[in-house]
């Protein structure tokens, strides 16, 4: 399976002649490059994970809505996502190139979200030149672009009502300083990321706290002491396999490394970017046509988006202490987690929430027991990992946070439960099969 994937990518690089290319490369594969371009700019911009999920979801929905009329089997999201209504329709009886319409909508939407626009344009230019060489009549091409632009404009209008802009002017978060509450963590002691993300309009959830999970263990309880001990002891005796697992799922968009005065960062795709990559991979493996491919991207993006809102809502409600702070306070002043602790409160593990939500969606789309090798982290120097199902992958993503020393077990287990419920609500809404209880999360 991985073999196929490699052939496809190497074909892209060979500069084959136009006819061969347009036959050899399915539309969905071209779109995967669009998604990759967006991911690369998101990484460059050092986009925090919840913000990245927003950067994905609107462009993906725009692409889907612009290409969807080309496939009568797929319905519009209008009326099914909060605040999304009446989208422009294509002119009846006119011919369209749906890939051109979809990519145009995607580009125009994503362009508004990314910060380093010059870089996005730079990544986009080769895709754009290829699209311009497609064997379609100029008026069809122009009409498709125009339609894509109209959809993008509508999606952007919709996105502007999600309260993102208002959250930009809200007061910055002040750590409480009470025992058991979150404190900024080294090495950079960065400010808390996105304390008002629960103000953002959800896609499918009725409210950010639609699915409530139990409160975490009280700071003074024995249960907390046990969990703290589990993290510190696990961290002290990590096996190579556990290290590999933690590193694979690190997904830290901005890990700052310091050597004396020399400070540099290592960037990776965020948890959301990781699952967008996995989705692209599966689409490739399954040779999905354009519209079903875009549909997969959309449902995954929606799961990410709602997952982050729910996770962030809980994070700032509980404002829970990170393991590194608690463990150092508890008499191990030199204890260090393997991974850098991300700059926001601990409970629940957002990676667990979104991984499980996405796994449920992917299982709904592509079935359980889907065997695959996840190579999305290979460009970041991390070898691929084999999984027997999406659920297994999500469980591993969850437990990796304990190995990495950045979450307690409760944050992982209850986070996974939250993700499961969010994922199941999405698959039910879009007439896919829900998934039963998630597999036990054990090392």
């Amino acid at each position: 399976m991985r073999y196929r994937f490699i052939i496809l990518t190497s074909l892209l690089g060979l500069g084959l002649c136009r006819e061969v290319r347009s036959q050899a490369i399915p539309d969905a594969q071209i779109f995967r490059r669009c998604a990759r371009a967006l991911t690369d700019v998101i990484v460059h911009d050092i986009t925090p994970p919840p913000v990245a999920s927003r950067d994905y979801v609107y462009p993906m929905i725009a692409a889907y809505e612009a290409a969807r009329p080309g496939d009568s089997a797929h319905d519009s999201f209008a009326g099914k996502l909060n605040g999304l209504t009446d989208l422009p329709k294509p002119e009846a009886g006119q011919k369209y190139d749906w890939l051109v319409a979809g990519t145009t909508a995607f580009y125009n939407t994503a362009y508004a979200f990314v910060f380093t626009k010059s870089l996005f344009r730079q990544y986009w230019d080769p895709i754009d030149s290829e699209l311009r060489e497609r064997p379609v009549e100029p008026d069809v091409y122009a009409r498709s672009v125009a339609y894509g632009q109209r959809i993008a404009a509508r999606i952007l209008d919709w996105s502007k009502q999600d309260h993102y802009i208002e959250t930009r002017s809200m007061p910055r978060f002040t750590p409480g300083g009470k025992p058991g509450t979150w404190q900024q963590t080294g090495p950079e002691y960065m400010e808390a990321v996105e304390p008002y993300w629960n103000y953002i309009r959800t896609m499918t959830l009725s409210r950010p706290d639609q699915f409530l999970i139990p409160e975490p263990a009280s700071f003074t309880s024995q249960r907390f002491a046990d969990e703290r001990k589990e993290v510190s002891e696990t961290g002290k005796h990590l096996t190579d396999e556990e290290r590999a697992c933690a590193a694979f799922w690190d997904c830290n968009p901005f890990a700052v490394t310091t050597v004396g005065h020399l400070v540099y960062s290592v960037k990776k795709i965020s948890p959301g970017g990781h699952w967008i990559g996995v989705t692209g991979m599966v689409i490739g493996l399954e040779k999905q046509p354009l519209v079903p491919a875009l549909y997969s991207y959309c449902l995954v993006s929606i799961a990410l988006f709602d997952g982050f809102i729910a996770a962030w809502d809980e994070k700032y409600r509980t404002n829970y202490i990170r393991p590194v702070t608690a463990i150092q306070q508890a008499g191990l002043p030199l204890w260090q987690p393997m991974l850098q602790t991300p700059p926001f409160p601990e409970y629940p593990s957002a990676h667990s929430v979104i991984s499980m939500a996405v796994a449920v969606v992917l299982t709904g789309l592509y079935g359980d027991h889907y065997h695959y090798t996840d190579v999305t982290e290979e460009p970041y120097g991390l070898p691929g990992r084999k999984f027997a199902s999406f659920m297994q992958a999500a469980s591993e993503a969850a437990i990796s946070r304990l190995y990495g020393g950045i979450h307690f077990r409760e944050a992982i287990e209850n986070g996974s439960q939250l993700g499961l419920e969010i994922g199941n609500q999405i698959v039910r809404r879009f007439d896919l099969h829900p998934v039963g209880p998630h597999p036990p999360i054990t090392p």
Partner: protein
Amino acid sequence: MKIACCLLLLIPCCATCQTLFTLVPPERSGIRFQNTITESATQNVLAYEYFYNGGGVAVGDLNNDGLPDIVFTSNMGQPQVYFNKGNFVFEDVSRQSRIKADGWKTGVTMADVNGDGWLDVYICRSGNGDDDSRRNLLFINLKNGTFREAGARYGIDDKGNSTQAVFFDYDHDGDLDLFILNHSIKRLKNFDVAYMKAARDSVAGDKLYRNDGNGHFTDVSGQAGIIGNPICFGLGVAIADFNGDGWPDMYVTNDYDEDDYLYINQKNGTFRESLSAYLGHTSKYSMGCDVADVNNDGMSDLLTLDMLPEDNRRQKLLKGPDGYDHFQMLLNNGYYYQYMRNMLHVATKAGDKIGFSEVGQLAGISNTDWSWSALFGDFDLDGWQDLFITNGYMRDYTNMDFLKYTAPDEIAKSLRQGQKPNLFEMVKKMPASELKSYLFRNTGKLGFENVTQEWGMGLPALSNGAAYGDFDNDGDWDLVVNNINQPAFVWQNHAEDRKNNYLKIRFHGDRKNGFGVGARVIVSASDGFKQIQELEMTHGFQSSMEPCLIFGLGKRQTVDIDVTWPGGKRQVLTGQAVNRTLILNEKDAGPADGAPNGGALQTAGYHPLFTEVAADAIPFRSDGIPFRHVEDDYNDFKREPLLPHQYSRMGPALAIADVDGDGKKDVFISGGKGQPPSLYINDGKGHFARRKVPAFEEYREFEGVQALFADFDHNGTPDLYLVSGGNATNFQDQLYLNDGKGNFTYNPDVLPLTESSGGAVAVLDLDGDGDLDIFRGGQVTTGAYPTPPRSYLFRNDHGTFKDATPEFMRHIGMVNTAAVADIDKDGVNDLVLAGEFMPVTILFGQRKAPYFSADRELIIPHSSGWWNCLKVVDLDGDGYPDLVAGNEGLNCQMKPSPAGPVTLDAVDIDGNGSMDPIFSYFIQGKSCPVATRDELFDQVPSLKVKFPSYAAYADATVKDIIPPEAMSKAIHLEAEEFRSGWFRNVKGTFHWLPFAAGAQAFPVRDILIGDFNHDGLPDLLLVGNNYSARAEWGREDAGKGLLLLQGKEGEFLVAPDPGIRADKDARKVARLDDLILIANNNDAIQVYHID
């Protein structure tokens, strides 16, 4: 090399216009030393992070031929030894000397370690090698031009990662002990600070070795109280008698997060780290340091270096100071107030205590980029200690684009190609920042001017260690500088051309300290000149100086000399001739006379005007506890990150009146939010009992910032007007009516609504009806700075107040102060207003409504400032009221002038409903935004699109930040004057007379006027400070209470020691009979007695 040759050619043709310093090129001097750094895969900055710190220089007469010689250390090469042959010709005797050192060499110092009258050489080593490669080396002088290594025999072959060593006699037993400044080689992050600070690391930690007097030293670090933890990164050490008790104290600078240390000698073989008791804040990435008497007051001052660049571009490109949260986090974890810039701590005196005011920015020496060595010396011999600073770094590697973009991109590229990222290759591509050293001339007014170019030193280099010595014995300091990958600079000083006089002093000490290390000398002259110097060999960075002192004397012909030898022996020589070398012998000195401090604390004939009322005798108490203002921890920056300072910390208000009609003055002080105000009733016996006022308790959530007593209800007793301020909510002012017995009640119907945060209040009779009306100024618009807040004019209509504010006064500015006087002498009250970004504004009153009008307004030209307080008083006794006003001062990065104002452009740039205030000020002639790229993005995220890199923002001005269409709607404010001073009213015309430099060292918050020295002329007592400025700017805490005494010509002179120490975040000062009260924000009240 190339540049040096050019200069050589220039010198002959420019003999008439010779600069103070000229370079002696290697061809002439014979000094071909250079510190060659070769990076390799195993030896580089990633393997050892102090790879680019450079080498040192030691100057001293090694062969006792009367001419100072030189030893250089090279990090990777062998040390080089040069004997001085006279006339700036040196002979390389490195090989003959047998001074040889492998491994990574750092500092070098000379000292007569074995007390035989010959200077020995001690070389420090560091690096990432094994223990033996790091052992420091002691080369004993064999008196024949050769040396023998004997570090182990003396017990001082320390295996630490050493930066430099200092030999000094800390226990006054007559021999030289050794302090070794060490550094960690691992930068730890993310740890429990208290644990780490208390730990001891035998390699990273500093060491103190006691000379046992028998040819052996003993490590006494632990028992002597020396901190030696794994997070210390020692880069500088200075020895001086900081507290004036006659014993050598020690200042140690630490790079990175660890605090600097100020070790006060306990006179019993131990030191006590006492930084926080003496200094309000320190440098953050502290590097080299030095000590000198920069203001000729007989006390040693301290300079520490850091790495803040002078130019805007490098400020914006390189990693800057910590933001608010990071700073607060470090503070909460037990670190001290540390800011990234050079700090000049000037000693100040209050009674018998020495403290320090940090005035580096006022003095103009705070920003000298990545700086290593600081050397004070009176290079032009004009009687003021000048300053030389070396700087430069081989790789510009705090570049923010590297951190955020270049490095991760390169790493990603390597990974995608399946390769391991090679960080070293990336570092090698970074450009070197070769910088010009800084040479500053001391102007004698708490200021320095940059004379680098003028004095002939404008050569860019990577300069590290440096030392001075008088190589040609002509009575001035020549300089030698150790450079990386470039020949050492030898600078010849031509001060003799300037016809200034000097006195050079050498010391012959008793016992085993033959060079008299630790001797303190005060040279004074009949014109009042007085300067202290202390003889220590180690100064600056990794270097040691010729063991003698040079006093520049200007045109003075004779001087008096007061010497205190280490151990206390005293010697006074009067009427000494100048322009010679004076040799002092300890055996000629008299016994210790009980005043061993060299005069620092001597107050001959001078008596302080105020004495402190001790904390336990403060009379303002309730339940036995003295009054303390408690501020709530509201943080304005969380809502408005670009504010210049917090507006929620303006209290307390202070007012004095006899409220109960018993003829004795009572005291009102407001509390912080949530803390009820306090009324203290005077019992006439020196006690003040707090009277509980139910209405005060009820309105405790209103933060009182200004208060005054006046009889508003015409019943003959003082009522209380209290202004509500802050920067959150609850801005309703309160008028409390007095029943005549000091019982205050509140009637909410008396006053109209006040909806802005208040800053000022004044009473006046608007309409001449005999009752008192009120002006109440608005200070800030909460959440929408700098929108002008609402100000009010309340007319008293038979005890009820009506809003009678004329339209033009409603939003007149951010008013911090208001005063009432009849400026135009027409018998009608006028109003004088000032505030932030406000000019001093005089509104001439008229009897009839609207009472004030825009066409009867006098704006004093170029007076727009950040005014905090203003008083109207006839200072010069000419019958015309003058204005005396407290401003921001000049001890900050901004130095506005009419040609280079501080500007503020504010508009909602991104349409998110929040005002985006963009501050700019002039840096090197160009108006530059204050905000860093990160701060700007925090406020206006959409600007990320416009400035995709730090480089793209590095040259941006406000016009690049605010688009033209938004700019047309922006509020535009300017401040042209930050100095405090007075406006002298000469028959109706105001003349601006700023106060002397000392009064510009802190924001002046309040001024008390009175004839404190009983000479019939009003004097001024200034208090202030500001602890809540932006985190990058840091605490403004140089204010200690400044007394300005009026002279006969109307000039105001800084009283050297008034005995007052208003060293907190002072807001108000007031007099109650013979007491002076100082009300401080979030701190206890201070009380002084007027003698």
